[in-house]
């Protein structure tokens, strides 16, 4: 249960407490999934990896219905293993691994590898998405929202 109020058990209900903020937040989040040309699968894997790093159940339980991940892939994301994933996803996951607690350790070669796969626009999309996934996990953990998947579009990938 969220410490804010007894009624604020979901991420959506918390956002709704700031009516002026919620539409902009949702619009920005949607843009991260659309603008830059990245495959949704890349973003979804990174989002889940960051959720696993933070041990954020409220974010981990949210799933993009457009991306099907095998149980082996989910387990790999949970434990930080890159084996099941193709080179492009591994390059993205390497950056995702750094973002929450090792952003200063991110190396030029790692960003270059991402640019080789995704181009400048895709890498911009990816880096900003990683930062936002990280911030979302922190906010969900701090606010104590329940790990309850919400209707599509209101709590997860649009």
């Amino acid at each position: 249960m969220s410490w804010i109020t007894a009624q604020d058990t979901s991420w959506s209900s918390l956002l709704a407490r700031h009516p002026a903020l919620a539409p902009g937040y949702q619009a920005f989040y949607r843009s991260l999934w659309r603008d830059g040309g990245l495959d949704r699968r890349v973003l979804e894997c990174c989002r889940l990896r960051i959720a696993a790093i933070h041990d954020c159940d409220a974010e981990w339980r949210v799933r993009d219905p457009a991306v099907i991940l095998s149980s082996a892939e989910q387990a790999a994301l949970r434990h930080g293993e890159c084996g099941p994933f193709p080179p492009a996803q591994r390059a993205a996951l390497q950056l995702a691994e750094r973002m929450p607690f090792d952003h200063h350790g991110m190396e030029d070669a790692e960003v270059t590898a991402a640019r080789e796969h995704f181009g400048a626009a895709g890498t911009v999309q990816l880096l900003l998405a990683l930062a936002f996934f990280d911030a979302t996990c922190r906010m969900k953990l701090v606010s104590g929202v329940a790990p309850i998947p919400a209707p599509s579009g209101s709590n997860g990938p649009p």
Partner: protein
Amino acid sequence: MSTRPRLPSAVPGEPESLGSVLAHTPEVLAGFFELYGTFWQLGAVDPALKEMTRLRNARITDCGY
């Protein structure tokens, strides 16, 4: 951490900055600055307090930018 920009400016003639790099993704750019503007202009938290928390976060994350 790199001391050189890792991504180019998307705006010809402009050096690398948050805005010129985000310009590679126009929809993201527009959404980001609209959301950022909302954070600062609206709400119950005093702007001075927001600024203090912004600077404190920059210090904690060691972000000189």
